[in-house]
């Protein structure tokens, strides 16, 4: 249907809606309802609301659908009332939380990261010290070419430092356990 034909129908009082095929009528009705619901809910831009208000003054079909939707909305508002708890609800909650120790304060939250940083720093410093010590023990002048793999020579140098190895392993294990504990705690609490 052309724009000219639509205008003619409008002038003759033929509602565009009435002469549409059924599927188009359903879509048209849906479109009108969507706009009216936005209007009833107070949504949409000022221009959209003004356009709907104008339609409601001039278009009988829009008025009819609006009346139906308002009736239904009032029915929902009346019968889907906000749920209300009993008067003793809050007292019940407060009684249950009374024996619970005070929730973690911001100060206590900071304690864990400081400990973590301390242990991580110890581990990093130890590792750097070990590397520097190892490099200082290598006789660079005696090697004409780089060995195929420096690892065996380093391992030989480190053979006598079993105590240092033990300390580093223990520190690494502590760091890993603490990180695991924090990760599990974070996983257990709901995301904010």
């Amino acid at each position, binding site marked *: 249907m052309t724009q000219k034909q639509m205008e003619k129908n409008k002038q003759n009082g033929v509602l565009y809606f009435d002469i549409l095929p059924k599927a188009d009528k359903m879509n048209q009705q*849906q479109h009108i*309802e*969507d706009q009216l*619901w*936005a209007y009833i*809910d107070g*949504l949409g831009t000022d221009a959209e609301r003004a356009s709907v208000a104008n339609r409601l003054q001039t278009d009988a079909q829009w008025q009819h659908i609006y009346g139906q939707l308002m*009736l*239904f*909305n009032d*029915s*929902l*508002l009346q*019968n*889907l*009332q*906000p*749920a*209300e*708890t*009993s008067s003793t*609800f*809050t007292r*019940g*909650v*407060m009684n*249950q*939380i*009374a024996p*619970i120790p*005070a*929730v*973690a*304060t*911001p100060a206590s*939250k900071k304690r864990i990261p400081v400990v973590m940083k301390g242990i991580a720093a110890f581990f990093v410093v130890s590792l750097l010290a070990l590397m520097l010590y190892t490099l200082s023990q290598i006789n660079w002048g005696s090697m004409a070419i780089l060995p195929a793999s420096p690892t065996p020579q380093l391992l030989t140098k480190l053979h006598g430092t079993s105590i240092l190895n033990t300390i580093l392993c223990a520190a690494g294990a502590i760091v890993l356990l603490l990180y695991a504990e924090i990760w599990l705690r974070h996983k257990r*609490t*709901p*995301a*904010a």
Partner: protein
Amino acid sequence: MQQHTDDKEIIALVLQGNHAAYARLVDRYRNYVFALVLRYVPQQENAEELAQDVFVKAYKVLATYRGDCRFSTWLYTIVHTTCLSALRRKPYNTTLPGDDVLTRLHESVYHDAPGRQTDDKYRKIILKQAMNELTDADAQVLELYYMAMQSVEEIARITDNTTTNVKVRLYRARGRLKEIIETRYRAELMNE
């Protein structure tokens, strides 16, 4: 916005050790939480008990609330996890009155007082029954909008969706609900 700021102030007080300040948060959100819990557990008594559990749990993890979203949105997550855990531990009776109960209610209304309008309680039960026939997503958006009195923007945040999608879902849910009611309960709910 004002309420969001007030919530953060109350939470700060609670975290500083002001135990009694938590009662203000409970009073503010108790009906909202109750409405959400009713989706999982329709019986009032069980729902109220679960709602209290939600607030106790929220108190225990209050320090994890970072304030980057509304408190109601944060609470919603706790409601969901608490209710699912509770249903796994102890399956509540989640069914609504069946058709035989509705028939008896209907008969008692019309036998006791011929010509009288349908009892409010009966009308509410019909509406709940009709909503039970909607999909979970449709029922959820209607309950959040009408029972928990949340705005479209808040529903979008709670359900992790866009405002546009929520608007469309709200319109469609109302349309489907209207269709269900008109098919089965037209006279009672539409006051005809």
